[in-house]
């Protein structure tokens, strides 16, 4: 009871803080100084029409590298927590017979033919759309993380429709580590060839607004998109494989 009162008290305090914040709120009528700098200088300096991309990939590129690292660590953490060990297998053997039968029944129930056919038809398009989103990240809304998430949703689609389908862990690991490594190499090349770490002007800026423009931004987003897509696919696969199939 005391706990409940305490929680209620704390939340009331939080609500009062928030109320103060909200009642003093006035909408901005002009950009902040930093935002103004990015909007004025971004297109000329970096050649990227999408300014959020310019901020994410170049001006705040180090943050993005950290973000990719956090995602990698969390994917590795999920992999570590949900790995199959000999002991886990023994636990599975020790399940009651009823549980076991129920699990097997769930495992072998196939998706309907409509779902399976639609998956085969749509999956390439979903993945193509993901690639489109991250390759156009510097021109239109989108980018590496969004495109990667779309690719992972394609994997989710595959896992829902064809639960028995096999996803190669080795391929995921190789693609993921190669793209992560190349991302850092591109960043270091920025120090050597241009103004600093992750500077996108190591490549020609190209025609403003065309697909191969804005220096290294499409390349970085390609690498980030592949990395995020494969990492999230691996996470989804881990959650599925938890008690079925071989390692």
């Amino acid at each position: 009871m005391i706990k409940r009162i305490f929680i209620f008290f704390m939340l009331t305090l939080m609500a009062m803080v928030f109320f103060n914040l909200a009642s003093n709120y006035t909408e901005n009528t002009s950009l902040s100084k930093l935002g103004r700098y990015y909007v004025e200088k971004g297109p000329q300096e970096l050649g990227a029409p999408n300014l959020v991309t310019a901020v994410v990939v170049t001006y705040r590129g180090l943050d993005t590298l950290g973000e990719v690292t956090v995602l990698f660590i969390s994917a590795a953490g999920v992999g570590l927590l949900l790995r199959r060990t000999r002991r886990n297998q023994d636990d599975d053997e020790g399940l009651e017979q009823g549980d076991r039968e129920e699990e097997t029944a769930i495992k072998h129930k196939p998706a309907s033919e409509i779902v399976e056919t639609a998956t085969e038809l749509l999956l390439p398009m979903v993945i193509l759309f993901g690639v489109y989103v991250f390759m156009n990240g510097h021109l239109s809304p989108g980018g590496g993380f969004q495109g990667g998430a779309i690719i992972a949703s394609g994997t989710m689609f595959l896992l829902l429709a064809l639960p028995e389908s096999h996803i190669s862990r080795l391929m995921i690991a190789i693609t993921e580590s190669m793209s992560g490594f190349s991302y850092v190499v591109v960043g270091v090349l920025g120090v050597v060839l241009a103004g600093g770490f992750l500077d996108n002007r190591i490549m020609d800026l190209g025609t403003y607004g065309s697909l191969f423009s804005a220096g290294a931004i499409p390349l970085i987003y390609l690498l980030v998109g592949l990395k995020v897509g494969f990492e999230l696919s691996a996470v989804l696969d881990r959650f599925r494989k938890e008690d079925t199939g071989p390692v």
Partner: protein
Amino acid sequence: MNILTDIPVSFIVLCSGLGLILIGLWGMLTQRNMIRMIIGFSLTDTGIHMVMVSIGYVTGGTAPIINDAVPMADAVNRVVDPVPSALVLTAIVIGLGVTAVMLAFAVRIYKARKTLNIDECTESRW
């Protein structure tokens, strides 16, 4: 004079974001089921993103993408702040990673104890 159109959109987004933060905190503090606590975390997370986006809004601004619709010369007066948007993009990805790890822990705890109730995991208390 319509009262609904007089309120700025960003203010509505800010208030719903703050409300979501409170609901999520309440969920995390009161629920005993781990999955529900994780949902509470997700709600708080989303609320914080909404607050951040609403702070970056500029009256009458559009997406910070320079193209035919937003010419480069006039861009400063017509776009919203790109910095909070970029920060929210980062925050969404981090939130996703944290949620995935929490769910993995929940799966592990469920396998070990056959329960999702946090009150029954007493020996990990300090």
